[in-house]
């Protein structure tokens, strides 16, 4: 590290490319955040800072539509994340603490299926499925689809965490006459908490952000935030859309940051 010229590890230019990479990743988000505070009604000219478009989101002519969409989005995201995280906790326990069994690989394949199938294909398949069993499209269809595709996102951090916890804690509890159920609920589950929280938050964000599948399985007139934003953007990018986007962006960044720090905490000591 001391003399960069003779350091066989460092290549000139790689640092610059990394910085360029970060600029490309963050520039669009930063620009939209800045322009969401633009007081001009046109998105092209800058007329000074104001919170006018944030006020417009909550009280303007389109506010009812966006409030309803936001409520749908959050109800779906919280429910889907809760259910998929519970399913993922049980599945991870069987996969990581269930020994070797025949269906293990198949089960892992099934759990990661939503990650392997292209999203548009999942969307088409789910729409066709609900149509074929005569299930009316609405909030319920969105919720079911979200629960299914959130499972792998909740599963991965949870199983990674469980693999990192030695089973000596549970063994010790059982040596002291705890039942398996007690060892699970009193020992393993609390130790798993960081993984569970980070799995829940990732599932929550993935559900909150989903556009393609939601757009296919939602009923007429039912909107979530992404589908409402997409509908609005089709008529041109307006300042109020940038304000909503900035708020959603903020929520995602906060959630991921919490997830990052929670997953780093080590509560096995």
């Amino acid at each position, binding site marked *: 590290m001391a003399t960069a010229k003779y350091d066989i590890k460092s290549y000139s230019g790689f640092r610059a490319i*990394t910085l360029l990479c970060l600029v490309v990743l963050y520039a669009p*988000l930063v620009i939209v955040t800045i322009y969401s505070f633009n007081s001009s009604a046109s998105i092209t000219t800058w007329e000074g800072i104001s919170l006018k478009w944030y006020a417009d989101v909550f009280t303007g002519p389109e506010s009812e539509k966006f409030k309803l969409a936001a409520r749908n989005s959050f109800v779906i995201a919280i429910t889907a994340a809760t259910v998929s995280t519970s399913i993922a906790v049980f599945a991870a326990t069987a996969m990581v603490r*269930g020994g*070797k069994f025949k269906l293990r690989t198949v*089960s892992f394949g099934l759990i990661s299926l939503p990650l392997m199938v292209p999203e548009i294909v999942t969307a*088409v398949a789910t729409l066709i499925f609900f149509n074929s069993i005569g299930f009316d499209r609405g909030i319920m269809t969105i919720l079911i689809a979200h629960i299914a595709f959130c499972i792998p996102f909740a599963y991965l951090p949870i199983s990674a965490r469980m693999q990192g916890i030695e089973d000596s804690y549970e063994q010790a509890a059982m040596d002291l006459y705890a039942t398996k159920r007690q060892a699970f609920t009193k020992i393993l589950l609390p130790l798993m908490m960081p993984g569970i929280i980070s799995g829940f938050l990732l599932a929550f964000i993935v559900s909150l952000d989903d556009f393609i599948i939601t757009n296919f399985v939602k009923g007429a007139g039912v909107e979530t935030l992404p589908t409402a934003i997409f509908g609005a953007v089709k008529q041109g990018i307006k300042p109020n859309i940038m304000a909503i986007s900035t708020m959603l962006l903020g929520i995602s960044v906060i959630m991921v940051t919490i997830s990052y720090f929670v997953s780093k905490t080590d509560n096995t000591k």
Partner: protein
Amino acid sequence: MAAGAASGGSATTDTYKESRFWLLLPAWVVLGIFVLAPVMMMLIYSFLTKEFRGGVIWELSFAAYDQFFCDRGLFGDEPCTIEWTYIQIFWRSIWQAGAATLLSLAIGFPTAYFIATRPESQRPLWVFLITIPYWVNLLIRTVSMKFLLRDQGPLNDALIGIGLLDSPLHIVNTNFAVQLGLFYSYLPFMVLPIYAAVERYNFALSEAAADLYATKWTTLRRILLPAVKPGVIAGCILVFVPSMGSFLAPDLLGGAKNFMIGSLIEEQFKGNAGNWPFGAAASMILLTMVLIILLIFARQQAKAEKEA
């Protein structure tokens, strides 16, 4: 993401062996009924007769695949010659996804390498910085990209302002805009596997090469690259596969000229085309292509693991 999680684990035990069936049951039921069964149903729908304005009639028909592959003239009664329209759309998708993958590799490899060679305590923070944007809504990211790149957007304003350009650069509605959008959508998928591979790489090998008077670039090409190849291939697949079936980037950044598979499928269900069996058939063809790519990849990984 899929490749990052190996199914095995060191702390795997059999403490809850007796209850594993009940523990896995909810996952099996939900994913079996709402992901696997729908894909099967989609396969069936692709062989049914279309109903106008969406839906199907339960009658066996090969019309969807016929429409995809066969050109039967204006009145539909001529013998089958190859229909190029849809093959071209698939080809364009492959090409666009490939270009986006190369772009991601060109930027992602140096980035991953740079991160992996930081002091160990700094690495998680760098990885975190690269992955944050991924968790921001894809729609919002794509819209932001469009806003930035517009003819009257901040990028063109700035370039004209500092005198680098006289008239705005047209980026939106070009192939390059779509590639940039795809790059922006899936970059972490390229960086993370390469980062993991470089982190495991034993730099003593590079030192040995340097001792034998290999130049730095030769060492990179001949020693490091072969060693981290599995990570590079994993990254390429993780970017290529979702790019091929993407909808938002081509729809918002590409315009009508840059139609890709995602838009073709969407049009059958949400748009004016309203041909469900054809949409199901196009989805099946896309899914088959993806599964073949993943299968070849899994085979190679298994082979590489055996050799190692």
